[in-house]
Each structure stands twice: as C-alpha cells, then as structure tokens.
C-alpha cells in the first residue's frame, strides 16, 4: 500500500497530493517533486517517435532509503506518482500497475466531470476515497 499518492499536471504543478497523515507531509512533497526529474528523464529517453507506443507505466523511479517511488505518465503528460514504503516487500510490480490503472480510471472520471475545470486541483470526493483506499491505513 502506498504512503503517498500524487497527481501532477503536465506543467509539473501538483493537482492532487495526499500522504499518510502521520508522516511528514513536507518530505513527501519534496520526494514527489524530485521524482519528476526522473519522470522527465524517462520520457525523454524513449524518444519522440516512440512516444505513441510508450508504456504509461514507468516503473520504479528511484529508491530512497525508506521509500520506493513509482511513476506513471498518461498520454496527456499527467503524472501519477506513488510512494511506497521500502519495507513493504509484499508489493509487487503487478500490484503497483493495478494501482496506477485504478488511479488513472478515477482520474479520467474526474476529468469527465463537466464541472471540473482542467488544471484545477482535484477535489472530488470519489477520487479522494479511492485514493484513501489505496493508502496505508494510518493506525
């Protein structure tokens, strides 16, 4: 389960960022922000021509001492970042993928909302609850 989930706009400002409340929120902000560099590197590494066939899932962006950061980029260059605890070894690549898929679907729903103004921060309750379902439950 994730400890921090973030959605970042094409222009690299956060649309949504949520972390496990007991942890240091600021740290996650920094971590997610820094991971954008890796995302950009990975995107640019694929190259222009292959951009269409590029897989959305970027895999492990970078491991820190305590956390693993995974990334995913939609075709519209919206980035999803999931930070998971390094100690959580049960988390497999497949599960991360499915988390991203869920996140993407939910994000699409948000975008489909005619009252949502693209570029605004996400305040959807449905999205929120879906994210909390994916988060580590703070006990």
């Amino acid at each position: 389960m994730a400890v921090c989930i973030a959605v970042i706009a094409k222009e690299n400002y956060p649309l949504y960022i949520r972390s496990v409340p007991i942890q240091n929120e600021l740290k996650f902000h920094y971590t997610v922000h820094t991971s954008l560099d890796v995302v950009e590197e990975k995107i640019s590494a694929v190259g222009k021509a292959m951009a269409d066939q590029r897989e959305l899932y970027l895999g492990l962006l970078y491991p820190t001492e305590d956390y693993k950061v995974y990334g995913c980029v939609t075709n519209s260059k919206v980035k999803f970042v999931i930070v998971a605890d390094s100690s959580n070894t049960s988390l497999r690549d497949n599960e991360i993928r499915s988390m991203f898929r869920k996140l993407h679907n939910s994000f699409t729903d948000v975008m489909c909302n005619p009252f949502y103004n693209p570029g605004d921060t996400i305040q959807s309750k449905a999205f929120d609850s879906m994210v909390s379902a994916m988060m580590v439950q703070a006990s």
Partner: protein
Amino acid sequence: MAQCVQSVQELIQDSFVPKVAVLCSEDAQKITRKNNLNFSELLRPFCRLTSEGHMRDSNNQVQVVKNLRISVNNVVTRPSVPTSGVHSPAQRRLLSEVVSASQPAEGGVANVITAGDYDLNISDRSVKASVPWYSDWRDTLTELSTSKHYTATTPWFEAYRESFLQSMPASDHEFLNHYLACLLVVSSSEAVPVEQFLKLSQEQHMIQHNGEYTNPKWFIPNTLKYYVLLHDMSQGDEQRADSVYEDMKQRYGSQGCYLLKINSRTAAAGTDEQIPDPWSQYLNKSSLQSQVRRDFVPLPHTNLLQILQVSGLSLDNTHPLQLETAIDMPGSLDCLRAVATETKTTTVYTGVAAGTSHGACLTLNDHNRLRLFIQEFTFRGLLPHIEKNIRQLNDQLVSRKGLSRSLFSVTKKLFGGGKVPEKSIAELKNTSGLLYHPEAPELQIRKMADLCFLVQHYELAYSCYHTAKKDFLSDQAMLYAAGALEMAAVSAFLQGGAQRPYPAHYMDTAIQTYRDVCKNKVLAERCALFSAEVLKSQAKYSDAATLLIKMTSEDSDLCSALLLEQAAHCFINMRNPMVRKFAFHMILAGHRFSKAGQKRHALRCYCQAMQVYKGKGWSLAEDHINFTIGRQSFTLRQPENAVLAFRHILTNDSQQTATQQGAFLREYLYVYRGAFLRESHTVALPQLPLPCINSSATRVYFGHERRLAEGEKQAATHVSLDQEFDQDLAAVWQDLEEQVVAAANRGVVPSTFYPTQCCLNSQTDNLHFPLAVVEEPIIVEVAFRNPLKVPLVLSDLSLLWKFTLKDFSRPQPQDVMVGDAVTITNEKEARLKLLPRQTGQLTILGLVYNLASTPSTGDSTINSNSPSVRGRQDLEIQGPRLNQTKEEKTSVSHGPDRRLDPTITPPMPLLEVFFLQFPTALLCGEIRKAYVEFCNVSHVPLCGLRVASTHPDFFTFGSSSLATPLTPLSPTSFENCSAYKTLATPPGATPGSVTAVTLVSAADFGSGGGGVFGTGGKRVAEIPLGEGTLTPGESTQLPLWLRGPDQEGVHEINFLFYYEGAEKGGKISHRVLRHTVFICASRSLSVRATACRSNTLPEEEGRNGSMLVFVDVENINTSEAGVREFHIAQVSSSSKQWRLHKCINPAENKDCKLTTRERGKLCFRATRSTSKSLEKYTFADLSLGNEQIISSTTPCADFFFRRCQSSESWRPLIAVETQGRHSRSQGAGPGGGAEDITGVVRKCNEVDLDIIVLWKAFVVEDNKQVILEGQLHVALQTIGKEACSLRQKEEAQEMVLLKFKPELPPPMTRPSMEQLSHLIKTNLHYPESYSHSFVQKSLCMIPVILTLSNCSLAQVDAIIDLRHKTTSPESLEVHGSFTWLGKTQYKLQLRAQEVMRLPLRAGFLHAGVYNLGTPRVFAKLADQGAMCETSQQTATPALIIINST
C-alpha cells in the same frame, strides 16, 4: 557545477607535491622575522617552478618535469592528530572557518543555467539576487543574457578542499607527504656557521632516527640535507658570508649548499616604493586570519598578542590546522571575522597596517634570489636525489622480484584456492591494525611509486602502484591496498591519452575499503573528492553525484553540506539537467549547512533552491523554504530579506494548518518588529502583507453620515454606505436628476452636467475627479480579506493622504478619524473618515495600521505583549479595462479610477429633509396630510429647491396660488381635521343635488399648484419655499398631501430633492438629496362608471346635453386593515364639457355606506356645462353627506390634475398611432372621407367626464375609530363604455408576440355598426295613459311625437320605418297590436345637432298596454352616398296604457 579555478590534473598534482622540511637556526629566524615571515613562509610564493626540470628514469630515459611545485614546511615534532580517520575538533573548527570565510562575492557575475522550463541563477550573487526575487529576477536575466561569463564557482568548496588536503596527516601507508629533504638554514651572522650547520644536521638526524618523534615522517632514511646560509644584506658582512659559503662548498659540495642573500632593502629606503606582496595570496587563510587578529587586537591585549606571536613562532611553520592554541576572544571574534572576510574580498591585502605587510625588507631583487634559490635547490638538490632513490629502489625491486613471485606461488600452493577466503576473513578483522614497518620490503615498491608520482612519472607510478596493490591485497593489508588502488587510479587518470582507461572501479573499491574496512573517513573523503572531480571531468555527473551523496554522513554536517551541494551542481550539469534533484539537494545541503552553523551558506542554498520551487504550485515546499530563508536571514541580520520571505508565506493562499499559520504570523511579526524597530521613524513605514485589501471594493462616501430618525421626524434616506449599489436604481436616480436639472435650466440639460455621486464604488463612473465639499467628511470604506485561518487584529487604522493646495486659504491640517481595533477573521470592512479643512486636491494613498495576531490562548482582549507592528498598505485602484478602440481590445489597458482623488471645493449648502407623520401604509386613493421639514445645515444660503419623483401623482405640496390660510400650517392642529377643505352643507339643501359648481383653470394647478409640468419633466415640482431661499440654519415646514397609489401592493417611491447654492459658478452647480419611501397600498374601493344617453326630452334640462352616469362602487377591501366601512361622502365631476347635475338615486340611505364586499350603485344625471370656456374645468360637487368637500381646491384638485397627467402619459402611444394614420390617410388622396366619418362618429360618442368619488373609511385602530379619507378617479370617455378606477392591467401589451415582419397597416377602419348606431337619439313623447271609450269609438288615435336628435356634428340622413317587423316574434305575441297611422316611412335630413320632432299618430283597437317603441330609425351620414343606413339603437320600451272607459 562548481567550476574550479584549477583543472582536475592541476588539483591532483598540487595535492601531492614533494615535501621539504626546514630547520632554522635562531639567528636565521630573526632575519626572516624582519619580513614578518618565517623561512618556510618566505619561500612559499616561489615554490612553483616556472621552468622545466629534467631527470632520468631507471631506463635512462629523460623525463620532463613540468610545473613542479614543492612544499616547504617547518619541522614540527609535536605528534600530530592520530590517524583515527576522523577530524579533531580543532580541525573541524578550522575547516568551518575556512568555509565561512569564503563567501560568494557580492556583485559577481551571475550564471544562468537554462534547464527545461527553469532558468536558474546559480550565481555567486544569488544571495543578493534573492532579496527581491520577483522584481529583480528579470533584470538579472537580461543582464546575464548579455554577459559572457558562465562560471559558477563555489570557492568555499575549493577552500575547504584545499584546507582539507593540506591537513591530511602523514600516514604510514603512503609516503606522498613524507619529507623528502631538509633545508638547514643558518645565518651568516653566526659566529661559526659551520658548527651551527652541524648542530642542525644532528638535530635532523635525531628527529628522524631517534624514534622519539613519530611525527615528521621521512621518506627515505638518508634524507637529503641541503645547507642554506642566510645572509642579511642590511647588516651582515657580505664578504664573510661569501667566505663561509666557499667553506661550505668545500664541505658539502656545490650541489648541497646555497648562499641566500635577502633583506637588501634598508629600512630607510623609501617605503613608498610599491613592492608586490605575493605572500598575501599564498599564505593560507587561517594564518592570514591570525595575522588579522594580531593587527586588530586593541592595546590592552598586548600580552595576548605576545602569546599569539609566540605561538606564531613555534607553530606558524606547521600547518595551521594543528594550531591548537585556545584563542578565545569572545566579542571581538565576530568583528574580526567580519574584517577578515572583508579583506578577503578585496583580494589584495592592503587593508592591513604597514607594519604587518610581508616582505617589507625585500626588494624585487630579493624575490628573484628566492626564486633562483628554489630552482637551484630543486634541480640541483632535490631532483637528483629523487632520481637516485628511484634507481636504488628499482634495483632492489628487480632483485626482489623473483623472490616475491616465488613466495606468492608458494603461499598459493600451500593454502590452496579454497583456503584463501578463509584467511582473508580472518585477516579482515585486523587489517586496519596490520602495519608494515616503514622500511619493510613490501613498502619499497609503494615508495618507488610515490617517488615516481611526485616527479610526474605517472606511467611508472601506475605500474608500481598496480603491483603494490596486488601485493597488499594478497597480504590482506587493506589500508595499504586501498591507498595503492587510489593512487593507481589517479596516476592512470593523470597519464592522459588513450593508453589506459580510467579504472573507476579502483576508486570505488578504495573508498569502500577506506570507509568500511579501515573506518578512516578522512581518507575516504579525500579519495571521494578526487574521484568525483575525475568523474566530473569525464562528464559522468550522475556517477559523481551518486558518489558524493554516498559520502554524506551524520558525522560531519559541514562536509555533508558541501558534498550535497556539489552533488546538486552535478545534477544540474547533466545532459538532461535534473533541476528538481538539484533543488532538493540544495535544500538538503542548506539544511546541513545550517546544522553546521554556516548560516550564510545555508541561506544561499535555500535561495537557489527557491528558484525551482517558486511559483510552481508546490506550496508546502515553498512555504517551508520561505520560512527557512526568513529565519536564516533574520539570524544573519538581514531583516528585510526575512520580512520579505515571511511575507510570501503569509500572502500565499497557504494550505498550512491554522496553528502553523499562527506560528508563521507570530514569527513574521516578531521579525518585522525586530527589523523595523531599530530604524528611525523618519523612514517611510513598510508595507504589510496582511490582511489583503480588496482595493477595487473600496467605497468612498462624501458627506455626513445621516441620522435616519430623530424623534417623530424621519430623515431623508439619501445614500449611505450601508446600501448596496444597484445599477438600475442608479439609472433611475440619474434620470430623475437629469430631469430636475433640465427643469432648473429652462428645459435644457447643460453640457457640463454630470450626475451627482455620493458614494463611489467599483461600479460607479469614476473617470472624473469626485467633488467633495470642504468641512464635510469623506468616508472611505476599505474591504479587508484575511487569507489566513487565524484571526488578525488591526488597530490604530488611519488613512494616508496627500494634499495639494489649489485655492488659497490659511493652511490648516486635516483631521483623520481613526478606527478602533478590528479583528478580522474572514472579510471585513473598515470605515475611515477624513475631514477636509480647506480647498484643494486630495489624494488618498493608503492606510496605516497596527497588525497583531490574537493571542493563542484565545481570549479576545488585545494584550500588550502580543506583538503588534505598524505598517502601511497602499490603496491602488485599477480602473475598468478599456475596450473601445482596437488597440485597447488587443492589449490590456485599464482606465483611470479617481475614486480616491477628490477635489475639495468651497462650501455648498447642505439640505436636510425630515418627514413628519409620514405614513407607511395607505389605502388606495387615500389622502393623507404629512409635513416635510427642510433644513439648511450649512453656512451658505440655499435656493432653487425642487423635487423630482418617480411617482408624481403620489404627493402634492398644494397650489401656492390657491394657498389656503385655512389649512393649518402646524401639524399640532391637525387632530381629526380633514385633509380636505370642507363646507357645511346648507341645511335646506337636499343631499344628492348639486351644491356647488366651480370653474377652475388647469393652469392654476399646473404651474402654481406644484409643478413645472409644462416646461420640462413631468415629474419635477418646485417646492414653494417662503422667499425661495433657506438661510443658513433655517428650517421650514411645509404641508404635503399624499394619495395612496391606485394599485395595491408595495410601492417604492423615490424623491430627489434638488437645490443650489446662492452663488453660481462654483464647481458644483447643484446638489441633490435622495429619499426613498416604501408605501404599502391596500385595496379600498373599486369604482366603475358608465355613461349612457338619457332618453328624457332634451327640453327638460337645457339644450341637448343630458346623460346618465351610473357609478358602481364596490368595497374590495380585505378587512385586514381593520376598515369597518366606507362611506361615499361625495361624488364630484370634473370636465370641460360636462358636469354632474343631480343624483337620481332612489336615495334612501343618504350616506352611501359600504361594508366589506358590499357593492353600491349610484346614478347621476349629467348635463352639458354651460361654460363656454374650453380651457377651464368645471368642478361640480354632489355631496352625499352633511358637508361639502370643495373639490376644486388643493388636495383634491391637485391629485385630479396629477392623475390626468399621468394618465395622459399612458396614452402617447395611441395618440401617435392615430396621428400617423391620420397623416397617412391624408396623403392617400382626397377621398379620405372615411376618416372624417370615424372622427365624426367618435366625437358623437365621446364624453370627457371625470368622476371623483370622495370617500371616508371608518377604521378601527387600537380601539379607536379613525376616519380616513380618500378619493378615486374615473375617467369616462365614451358613452356606453365602462370605465374603472383601477387602471386596467397592461399585461396584454406586455405579452405581445414578437413580430419580425412589419405589421401591415390595418385596413381603413370604417366606423363600426355599433358606433354608427349612436348617431341619432330617438325619443317618443306621448301621454302615459289614455282613456278611451272604445264603445263609442272603436279606434283610438293618439298623437305621438317622435323626437329625433342628431348627436353628431354632421348632417345625417335618417329613415324612419314605422312598419312592424313581421318577422319579429314579439309583434305576434302582442295581442291586438296597434298600428301607426299615416306615412309608414319618413325620410328626413338632420343637420348637426338638430332636433326634429315628427308628429305621428298611433291607432289602437283595444284597451291595454302597448309598446310604442317600434319605429325603426336608420341613419347615415349625409355625404356618404355609398353607405347604407344603419339601424339606430332602439329606444327603451315606451309603454302606453290605453284604458277603456
């Protein structure tokens, strides 16, 4: 990246140089001390050799030594820091001093790196540039784009590295910084210099071989001794020196000794001669600092100074890192450091007093001598010595080679492959302890490698290191192996060319070994520094960064900070710059710097990171950085920067929690206070960021705040700040004002007219400078918004303004009203008052206030210890966006907004209006008398008082020409007195008959009676003031009659009082006062009236004019108002042609009484009035009660005329339509006869009679019976058509379908049949009953006269048909009908309004009752040949009774 001044090659070369020790006799030291230097310091600037050296390697090949540097140091026997691998506290302190002393030069050229979307300003100037980082940013960018310098240097890192490398303790596992040679220096002034040389030589030998001293480590047992005879030119005997030198040459050989002559400048020889001071750059910073200390210690500390000098004497020759004297100078230390940094930035060391300048006794010649000496020593002494040793070692090795190889193979055989790891594990545990003896044969190869390395023979060095590495590894001597690995990698790198790829993994292994196995952090760090540099030079930034980050540890914050910073620079220098990683690591570095106490560096790091985070939506991070910057700036005594940084946290719409925000706020206030308390108050107050001011929502109100009610008096509402602005309402007021201004200016609105605006806001027209009157307050309402979740407390608010005198009067200050403390939780307005005392131009600039936070304890009282700061905020209002021309549409430009720039004008009159007994609810049509008081509260007379209203028929001031003295002028005598003027009915008069007929000209009520209706707007009325003016302070009461609106419901009625000053030509031509009332009208009576022709004979009443008027009165009051009953008191008529004649009611109840929902019918006869005057109205009163109301006087007639006007205003559309049609038909040709007919026909049906029903209502109010009076108007226009007092709803018109095609003109209307049937009025005149003896005469003949009267004004042809309608069923019914005798058909022609009598005879056969009304009359207009006759309306049944006798 940190671009270094040196290249990597230079750096490494300079890090490992041949070291030379110095032993100096005391006399020699004295000589050098003259120059404030010891011998090694003296030589230091000249230690780099400018010329190439040559030496032969073991294969007798010539090796070129370029750019060699040697290091000359005094011998220090004190044991140095144990090689524990950790820095001692002293070392740490020194390193940190070095770093903090090296600060980015202010004003240096900045460097911008463009990385993706980011333009990063990673400059030395960033600390400065960060100060106004929104405003200055652009300037910096433009400046940088033009600049050619693209180097970001981190001099503090280089300084650190240099210090760090120099402070490396000599270690046993490597020989690079062991002494190769020793200079023995003796002065020529010595009695026996040779003895001294011997002494020194013995001393050196003792130090090296005694075993007592571990510290100065020596490379080779037989160290090169070089004998230097120092001669002081200023004192010594030169010849003696030369002779001693000759002696020395004999003894030590010409290559082993030297005569150095210095101090050739005499003290007297002008000090003005400028000699370059090379020492300032070469002497390292810490020693420089100690120099500074010496200079700046005040006199009382002389003993301390001596101590320092002593320590300088004994220790200066060692590396300053080992300087462990506890120099404790609290207080002065800071300023000294400050001076030190200052002098550092001015690279040339000139700021120091002349006494301490180095080399004062040296001439340029002496410099050259020193240079020569070093060269001589190196080429003649040192290099050959090294060459010799390399050869020796090489020989040894060659002889040993076979042995070692065989040994190796033997061990291998002995232990076998499988056992090696086991051994290694066992060995690993104590490898760090494994030490070879310095002269151990295993170290020989390493020694040789080091020697080769020192003389730049890297190829040989590499192969030696490589071999050594293998040996050490096999011995599991890990420290030695790591050292060999490190140097192997370095020498491979320095070899250059493509001979050998750089073995990066050697470095990694070395670092790992140093760190993990040997636990030697210092060595690991050194190794990492080299490795990183090498990687960087090979553009492997990612690896370098990883390496640097790996090297950070919890042990040393300073080191970690520096490494992190370098790593950050690596990220940004990658091919795809990783800006965010850069920023993140900068933050980490900043954090470590601050932990290490390097505040300036920390601040710089945060500022650089800020550039990435700024404005990108990462608010949490941004806030954190800003907060840190603020704190650091504050501790660094840069309060302005701190305040700025804190501002950003507070002004952002922060997502922080309330407690966090509260903390930020408190911190901000604290910092702010700290920053600005020190400054004098003459400085302009600084801007405060909180709370936000919504400038455009600022409202400005001119004038006093009004009292709304004062006892019974009710003041005019006017405009107040409490009202919301309503665009529609504003338009209504403006329209009213325009009308009243037009009326006051004889019907023309002057071109300079500009509507008065008392309250300016964002929606009003603010293009003009508003006008304010002197001595009248200006109230400014400022809208605050608190973006935080914690409340803010504002106190001592006042306005800032600027005043320019325009007119000339004695200067007087302006009063500023100050508001009370305001606590703002979310949004709040504050009102501030300004009282101008003289005329001129005022500009309101902003406001000043104290800002404080509420104490966290939660009590609302503002206690003194909660910090409050004083600051200002400007009010800048942007006008509306311009959107007129094309340029304005394509660009964004805003118009001016002059809300806050009022012009103060000379005094103007000021009117206050009060209403007395003004009702809030009225019955429809109710007449009520109220009083209005006009009061001039200014010091200037007032005149030209007028009023305009949206409902002019609602009120009247009475007619001045008919001003009745009867009406009581004071409201006190009002009690139970009718609003009407009444007369008691003469006792004899029968109720219901006309008692009075008055002729009144409309002009009386038109012009005099309260209105200039003719001139301008219909809604403007002049107010009859006594003399037309109100003197200052005067007040007048005037009666005011009100009439309830005809429509029920709530009516909003606007009054606009207009007045002028007595003096014309001022800036303000007039002033206005607004008043709005709401009247709730409830239903009273509904009056419907119809008129029809009376069939009575015209002879009876005058000539041809008789009409019946039926008035239906219904009480439609719903009893809520407590109305018990209505009495119809009087019915009056008003018309130009008609008048009511008498009531023909079966009037049993003389007072017509109507209770709830009751309906009454009144019937009147009206006659044509006899008056010839067409312009005058005839008022006829028919009193039904016991008193007559004179309807032709003030309230009644006024409202009648007002109603006429208002109803006229309802009609213009129809009038225009008919006119248009008229002209069209005329244009059509001469055959426009139809139009005439219509006119004629209509005319004949027209009545123009207005019925006024005056009623009284008995209302129970608070158990008291109150009589209300009222009047209702019905306008009768057409005979037979019902008219109603209530205006017909206009819904039908409002709901007209939209038509996009022009409507076809309606076909020429012919007069309708109905209309035509009214052309002729018939009347039968006969005896009502007739007795006839049918016995005697069977036929009874009765003469009947048929009167035909032409109602129209045209000639009419009439046909009278007397035949009974056979088809008519009723004729069959009538038993025994009668017959008309004589002609059955008459053709007649009637002239206009002619009355013709036609004698007829009727014959009856039986007695009975007969209807004589059978004659049918057809009529047509005489000149309309084409038309057929129309049957005229039959008269009512005319019954005749024939009696038989």
